[in-house]
Structure formats: C-alpha cells, structure tokens
C-alpha cells in the first residue's frame, strides 16, 4: 500500500516515479476513496480465474480491441460476441478504424485496456509474441477443433507456442468482369503465354488489360508477391521477406525484369490512383483485369455481382502456380490481460464453426478458417476463394504482413519509384538492400 500513500499525499520522489507503479493497487485505493465501484477489477464471484479448457467457467468483464470499422465486419464481430455461450462474461467491443488501429498497435499493446486484440496471423503476430507483448494461448489450441496445419503454423511463434487464433481469410487473385469476358469471348488463362495473348487481345479491343492503382503504396505489393512466388517459388519469397536473401540477387532482379515487361499492359499513373478508383475502372470496362484481394467486390454492389477471378497463372512450369497471398485475420491476447480466463474462452469460441458462421452471416466477403463452417451459404466468390486456398501449395500473408513493418514501408517506396521509372531498378534495389540490412539489424 505504499503506492496508495504516493497517490494521496504530496509529491512522490523521483525514485518512485521511475518505478512502474502498481496500477491495480492504486486503483483500488483511489476507487475506494472516491466511493465508486471498481470496474473490471475482480468480481468476487466464484468464476474461474484460470482457463479450464471449456467455455462457461469464466466470468467478469472482457474487452476486445477491434479494427472493424466497416459496417459489415463490425456487425460480424457483434454477432460472434452474441453467439458466445458464456453469459457470465460481459464483453465490450472497442472499435478504432483499421488504419489508426494498425499505426497505434504499439500504444494499444502498452495501454493494456483491451484483453483480446484483432490482428494478423504469421510474421506480424510473431513479431509481438517474440517481444513478450502477447499471451501464450497454447492451452486454447489444445481444445481447438477444425483448424488445419497451415493455420497452426501461422499462429505459432519462434518459441513453438501459439499466440494467435485465426478466424477468417481472403485470397488475392486476378479479378475480372464476367460480362466483359462473355461479351468479348475471353477465357481464363492457364499459363503466362495465354495471359499475355489475352492482354494483347484486350489491348487491340481498346481495353487497358490491367488496372494499376497504388495509392497508399500497398496495393502493388500484391503484384510483386505473386511474381516472386511464380518465378522463384514460395520458399524463396518467404526467405526474402525474412531478410535472408539479398535484394540485389539475380533472382530478385529477374522478378523486376518480368514486371517491367508487363508494365505496358498496365494503367499509367498508378501511384495517384486509389484501389477504389481502380475497381471503378474494372466495373466500367475501361480495364479488363485487376490483381487484388477479393475485397475488390466491396467497392460496389454492381461489381460484386459481376466479378469473378482466376489464380495468377504459372510462369515457370517447374515452380507452378500453387502459391498465393491469402492473408489470415484473427485475434490475439495481450501478455497481461485483466481477465485471462474469459479471454481464452472467447478465443476458443472464435475458433469454432458456430462463431464463424455467425460472423459470415454479416460479412460474406471472407472465408472461415474452421473446416466445419457452413459453406453452403457461401457465394460464388467465397466458394472459389476457399477452393483456391485449400489447393494452395504455399500461402503467404501479403508483403506488409510477411516482413518487418518498417521494411515493408521501404519496399512500398521502392515499388512506387520502380513503376515510375523502371530503368532505375538497379540503384533502387541496392538502396533497398542497404535499408534492409539496417532495419533487420535494429530488430535482431
């Protein structure tokens, strides 16, 4: 109770400031004094304080930090919470918009107000788990049923424990308008030569073959990802993202040569175009194809009804076309949650088909991670996404999730400059390699 004295009487000494005050103690003191009931401290009921492996034993208050500011995902998460069978847990959802949330994730983790946080699988999760900022949920995974090995791997940190609960994913592929393909008699290409002749046909019909939009400098990372995985394979791509290959390597240089040869088929002025404007170009038939996540359909109802996609075709038959970007979304728990038992029960619930069915009933733009989820309600795009991902030989999370965030930003700058002036590629790549070495040194 020394901290209590600190709070009430006068000025604490600098030595006391430097110490991380025991917040809970201070809170209890302060709250008791103010005559207010404590919120979110202990409940004093007989609820379990530790995860028992089943849902229904925990109680008390629980806060989820959510980045679902769009109406559909927001309603989806509310439905998941609504389907949580433990009524003794009072769940609050704290929503921040997706970009602010992402930029402030460090502050959110340090603040510790939210027990469970919406986040991304793979590297981005491991990044915080390795720093000790996340809570181990391996005991929850022991109870999980219906999540495949790929999801387990994407949820496991360097120490071999699980720190993530994957709930849904979406795929990146080449989107197109069904009506345009039918009208012009185009068909889905199965290798890069067919893709190029399709692009030539489109060009001679007066249609720009590829939408190219890069406002925010993330959308064309998808193009780099898929070209690198088609030319050098999945393992090389993941190693490159992990900082284990040089960007001046001949194999990376090849990716940019191929990209340069494809640039004439793309819209110009990509760096100033938002992806939404790009989606509009696909909708109006100004352009024929758009390499983007399936969220492209969210830009307009008309486009959603008319959109279909195909997997980016193989470039090298020895490597094939089995790898793709399919970012997995889900939830993680902070290192010291106020209510670990309830947090783990909710995470277990989120892994179930029941919870995911509830989510998808509100947001049909993604695919459930649990194999037991009800796929009969899927629309055509969801069915195709699920089939594509389940037949994939390697799934990456997208460049800005597969590497250190700072370095992803540098890649974004480099790609933007490259498409403005491809002749500068060699100096751009050696600059990027220098930045990679510096950034990876900071984090190792």
């Amino acid at each position, binding site marked *: 109770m020394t901290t209590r004295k600190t*709070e009430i009487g006068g000025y604490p000494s600098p030595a006391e*400031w430097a110490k*991380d*005050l025991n*917040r809970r103690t*201070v*809170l209890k003191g*302060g*709250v008791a*004094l*103010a005559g*207010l009931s*404590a*919120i979110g401290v202990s409940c004093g009921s007989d609820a379990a304080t530790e995860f028992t492996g089943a849902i229904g034993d925990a109680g008390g208050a629980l806060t989820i*930090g959510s*980045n*679902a*500011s*769009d*109406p559909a*995902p927001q309603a989806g998460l509310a439905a998941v919470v609504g389907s949580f069978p433990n009524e003794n847990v009072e769940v609050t959802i*704290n*929503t*921040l*918009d*997706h*970009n*602010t949330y992402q930029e*402030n994730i460090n*502050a*959110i983790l*340090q*603040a510790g*107000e*939210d027990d469970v946080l919406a986040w991304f699988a793979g590297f981005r999760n491991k990044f915080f788990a390795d720093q000790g900022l996340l809570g181990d949920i391996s005991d929850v995974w022991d109870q999980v049923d219906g999540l495949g090995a790929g999801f387990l791997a994407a949820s496991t940190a360097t120490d071999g424990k699980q720190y993530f609960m994957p709930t849904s994913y979406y795929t990146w592929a080449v989107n197109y308008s069904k009506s345009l393909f039918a009208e012009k008699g185009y068909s889905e290409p199965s290798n890069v030569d067919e893709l190029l002749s399709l692009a030539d046909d489109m060009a001679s019909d007066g249609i720009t073959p590829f939408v190219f939009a890069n406002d925010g400098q993330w959308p064309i990372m998808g193009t780099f990802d898929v070209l690198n995985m088609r030319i050098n394979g999945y393992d090389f791509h993941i190693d490159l993202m992990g900082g284990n290959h040089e960007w001046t390597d001949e194999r990376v240089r090849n990716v940019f040569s191929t990209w340069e040869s494809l640039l004439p088929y793309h819209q110009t002025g990509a760096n100033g175009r938002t*992806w*939404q*404007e790009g*989606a*509009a170009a696909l*909708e*109006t038939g100004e352009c024929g194809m758009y390499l983007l*996540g399936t*969220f492209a359909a*969210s*830009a*307009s*109802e*008309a486009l959603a009804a008319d959109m279909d996609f195909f997997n980016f075709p193989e470039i090298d038959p020895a490597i094939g076309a089995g790898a793709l970007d399919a970012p997995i979304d889900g939830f993680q728990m902070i290192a010291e949650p106020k209510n670990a038992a309830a947090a783990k029960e909710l995470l277990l619930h989120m892994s179930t088909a029941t919870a995911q069915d509830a989510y998808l009933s509100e947001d049909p733009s993604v695919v459930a991670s649990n194999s037991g989820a009800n796929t009969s309600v899927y629309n055509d795009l969801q069915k195709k996404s699920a089939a594509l991902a389940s037949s994939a030989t390697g799934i990456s999370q997208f460049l800005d999730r597969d590497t250190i965030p700072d370095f992803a930003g540098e890649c974004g700058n480099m790609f933007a400059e490259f498409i403005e002036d491809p002749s500068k590629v060699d100096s751009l790549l050696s600059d990027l390699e220098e930045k990679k070495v510096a950034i990876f040194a900071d984090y190792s």
Partner: protein
Amino acid sequence: MTVKRWPRVLAHFFLIALAVVWLVPLVGMVFTSFRPYAETSIDGFFSWPDSMSFDNFRNAWDRGDMGQHFVVTIALVVPAVALTLLFSSMVAFAVSRFSWRFNIALLMLFTAGNLLPPQAIIQPLFQIYLRIPLPEIPFISNSGELRGSLIGLILINTAFQSGFCTFVLANYMKTLPKELNEAAMVDGASVWRQYWQIVMPLTRPALAALATLEFAWIYNDYFWAVALIQQGDDLPITSSLRNLSGEFFTDENVVAAGSLIVVLPTLIIYLILRRQFIGGLSLGGTKG
C-alpha cells in the same frame, strides 16, 4: 488614367482566381456529400447529379456515432480553452505588469515552447502518462491512468496552447496604461485584485479573440487524441472522423458529409464571434 486602372483589374483577376482555387475543393466537397458513392465513382466527381439526398449525412451521423463524440468534444474543449486562458493570462499579467529579471526569458520560453513540434515529445509523454494513475471515473478517466483519459487530453492541449496565448496576451496587456495599476496599488489593491478586477476586464477583447481561435484549434486537434486515446468511444469528434473509413473500402461521400458536420460548429462560432475576433486582434496591434 488608364495606366492606373490596369493594376486594379489585374489585382481583381488575381483575387478571383485565388478565390476559385480555394472554393473548388470546398464546393466539390459539399456537392459530393449529397450524392451516392456508386454515382460519383462511375461518373466522376465533376458530373451532373442524378440523385441528391441527405442519406450520406444520416449515414455519417449514425455510423460515426457523432452524438457521443460531440459530447466528448465539448467536455474537452470548454475546460481546455478556459484553463488555457486562465493560466496564460496569469503569466502574461506577471511578465507585462512587473519588471522582474527573468521577464524576457520567461516570455521566450513560452514562445519557444510553441515552436516545438508535438511529434517530438509524444513518446516520452506517452510513457509519463502511462505511469500516472487516476481513479477510474466513468467518462472522465475510463482507463484509470492519465493516458486514455479526458483529463490527460485537457492537460496537454492546455499546456501546448498556453505558449501562444501568453505571447498574445502579454503584448496586449503591455498596451494598457501602467497608471491604472499604480492607482490601484495606491488604493491598496492586492496583486490578485489588480489582475482579476483591473487588468482582466480590460483584456476582454483579446480574451474573446483568443477564445475563438483556441476553440477552433483544440477542436481541430487530431494528433493528441489519436496518440493518447485508445478507446474508440472516447475520441473527440475530429479524430473520430476516421472511423468512417474501413479496412479497404471507404465511402468518400459519407466522409465528405461527416467532415461537413464536424466543420459546422467552428464555422458557426467564427461567424457569431467574427467581429470580436477581428476587432480584438487589430486593437492589440494598433494601440501603444
């Protein structure tokens, strides 16, 4: 005579061109806010409208939960402006009415503090705020510490705005005749009484001008709120506007409507207090 007319024509031409450059985006925003996204995305923003409605405004108000965020904003701006004016008028009074060795140094400190970019101090400030506990009071300090609380936000806005206000108020108070204070002192008025009953009433025009400005600045603050508040519901209106954007898709027309709703209070306050605003500033500039 014709020689003299040309510069005026040119000046007017320049002014009209400048006005157009300023008005096009603003009018474009107003225009867009009445149109559905599906229409502007296909036809472009500068197209003839097929349909116009208040749907975007209704949508922005509901989705952005703006009623709640306006309440937070009022609870932030009113005390912050009042405290800023109170504290800075005290410092201004001291440096302008009493000669003291550190007068200039103090004034320089306040003015220099004003030049410091907020980004430079956010990291240490965040860590300090994280370590200062508060009793958990709903709405005022939901988080139980200075970080994430309304009090923390009021404090940092007050601290950051005080520099500029001290500078303006000190300059204004210097123009008030010294004899007033001397007469009051002869009559036995205490320092507090000289401040509160002699100088403050005379400073009212400057205070009114600053109150208008400070209202707009603190109301428009985006940085502090985003950096220090982690609960979406506790954000003031300006920073909560971002909640209208989604992970990928953002309905820009709804954002335009939401921005218009947010900008209205500052516009209204400016229009009501415009005379005081302009009068106050020019009064300080011409006297003395």
